[in-house]
């Protein structure tokens, strides 16, 4: 109620009316939720970027990695009955192993192959993982056991649902951890060197193979954390990985090889998507939220194909 009083412009001249106030508080609520969603998007986008930066592979099986992470954590919680932090740890270890195993098996033979092969091999990998998950766990929808306190956070001007809040916190912590590793650890330096120039890194004694495998592990870790967070918010089934494709809009917006771009892009896409849900849904009868990221992709590619912070490559014959 108090909100409209502080706002300048013609709003103040209108008779005080509940609907007007409602509009603004809904808008702010939507933006806050958008920022929180954006954090989760940024996390998945980070998985794409970590892999792309070191290996120039776009991993379209990211969604399946996410789903797998959510299912592993879910199984650890409900079948083994371990506390959440142990289940979380198991999932992370699993992701690291997944990255280290599939990189030499499936992805290394693709180095130097045309882009279509590189993309299709990750799609094929996704199909295999999806089939295996279907076999092990049923395709039925299930809800996550409660792992976070269910109380939503009331900021005064907006309310954040508990799942989203904890998802945002997780995403933030993971992102910071990755940035610290990237910036300050030896491994991180090796990864950055490989991303910059593989030959030079190789001659300086960096194990480029090791870095490749590790990048896939890091990407998988980001994906599984994203999977746990999203699974916790909206339940899990084997099709939840489709959100991975929507997260592509984040990296296109931020630039395929920019970590900062992934995070900022995540926020922008999160907000835009929720705004689309608010303003465009009534016009077209729903579904705007799902399709908004893809409109963003097309728009960015037409206007600024290398994204906000992506490296612009100049091609010479």
């Amino acid at each position: 109620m108090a909100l409209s009083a502080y706002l300048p412009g013609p709003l103040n001249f209108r008779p005080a009316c509940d609907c007007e106030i409602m509009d603004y508080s809904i808008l702010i609520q939507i933006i806050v939720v958008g920022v929180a969603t954006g954090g989760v998007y940024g996390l998945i986008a980070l998985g794409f970027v970590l892999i792309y930066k070191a290996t120039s592979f776009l991993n379209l099986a990211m969604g399946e990695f996410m789903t797998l992470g959510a299912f592993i954590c879910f199984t650890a919680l409900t079948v083994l009955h371990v506390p959440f932090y142990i289940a979380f740890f198991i999932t992370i270890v699993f992701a690291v192993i997944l990255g280290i195993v599939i990189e030499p098996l499936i992805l290394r033979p693709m180095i130097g192959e045309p882009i279509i092969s590189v993309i299709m091999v990750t799609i094929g990998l996704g199909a295999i993982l999806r089939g295996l998950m279907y076999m092990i766990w049923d395709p039925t929808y299930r809800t996550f056991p409660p792992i976070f306190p269910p109380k939503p956070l009331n900021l005064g001007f907006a309310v954040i649902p508990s799942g989203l809040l904890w998802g945002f916190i997780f995403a933030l912590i993971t992102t910071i951890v990755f940035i610290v590793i990237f910036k300050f650890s030896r491994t991180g330096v090796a990864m950055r060197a490989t991303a910059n120039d593989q030959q030079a890194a190789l001659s300086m004694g960096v194990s480029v193979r090791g870095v490749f495998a590790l990048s896939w592990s890091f990407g998988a870790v980001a994906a599984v954390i994203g999977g746990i967070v999203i699974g916790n918010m909206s339940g899990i089934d084997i099709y939840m990985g489709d959100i991975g494709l929507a997260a592509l809009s984040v990296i296109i917006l931020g630039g395929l090889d920019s970590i900062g771009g992934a995070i900022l892009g995540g926020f922008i896409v999160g907000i835009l998507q929720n705004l689309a849900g608010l303003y465009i849904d009534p016009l077209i009868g729903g579904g705007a939220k799902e399709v908004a990221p893809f409109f963003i992709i097309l728009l960015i590619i037409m206007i600024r194909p290398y994204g906000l912070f992506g490296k612009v490559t100049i091609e010479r014959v």
Partner: protein
Amino acid sequence: MRCGDFKENYIDDEAIFPSRFTRFWLALFLIFLIAFPFMANPHLLYIANMIGFAVIGAVGLNLLTGFTGQISLGHAAFIGVGAYTSAILVTRYGISFWLSIPLSGLVSALAGMVIGIPSLRVKGLYLCIATLAAQFIFGFTFVHWESMTKGITGIHIPPPAVGGFRFDTEKSFYWITLLFVILGVGYARNLVRSKMGRAFVAIRDRDLAAEIMGINLFRYKLSAFAISSFYAGVAGALWVSFLKVVTPEHFPFILCIQYLAMVIVGGLGSVIGSIFGAVFMTLIPEILNVLSDMVKSHAPGMGKLIIPFKSVVFGSMIVGFLIFEPRGLAEIWNRVKKFFTLWPFSY
């Protein structure tokens, strides 16, 4: 004695049917195709029709991805555009099926050209993601443009007819499919040896170099998208006329991947490869179905594993071919042919 197959001039080299031997076997194969509906049961004919639609779509995608090197993750969208155009023209405007097929191809080609515009600026991964976005936007449109597409309830389509004869069985529709497959494959085979086909290959190998040699990238890239989408549109229109119904669920993202898989398994940049790929990738699930029926009678619990197992086989097929046989079935076919032409001195 001449060992092997020597070409002495360019006309020989570029011939579609290079030797008497090929012509003989091709004629025999054509006779088989014509005799097939008189021997097969409806289920086999159903599969044959499906293979036909897949061949048309895969040849189109191969022209774009295999020959021009522009990766499209949006082929299902163009198939959908063609399918909906045909369905709407036939049911709403009463246009005959025969006219609706080329029209749906044209509308689809137009959509393809619009989606192809980013290809002028970006390539590789970025183009791939742009076409993927287009796929989802078209999918969304099919669901939500209810005044035209009737949303998720879909449109029912009357079977095509000539005079009083209705093509409403697997057997009768087979003739339509066969006609369009022959037209489509024949056109593609001729296209790739024309100036345009060579321009496509030059663009695939290095687009900047091609541009410097005088190939108009704008024109040829958009042509590739248009032709490929035309094929997709025709395939889609035929497919839904055969099914007699069209809903948005017919064109999921996985359909794009299936078509790409056909092209890769068959062999990128090979018309005959796309045919092999389409046949192969359509038959594999059918074979798995037969196997699962056999297993089901022994172990009833195994039946529900067949759907995920198909997915695993599908993925392994893509990964396996990419790693072990990147040039696909067409290359295997070539090796087998070479073995026999050079036999017994195959070294």
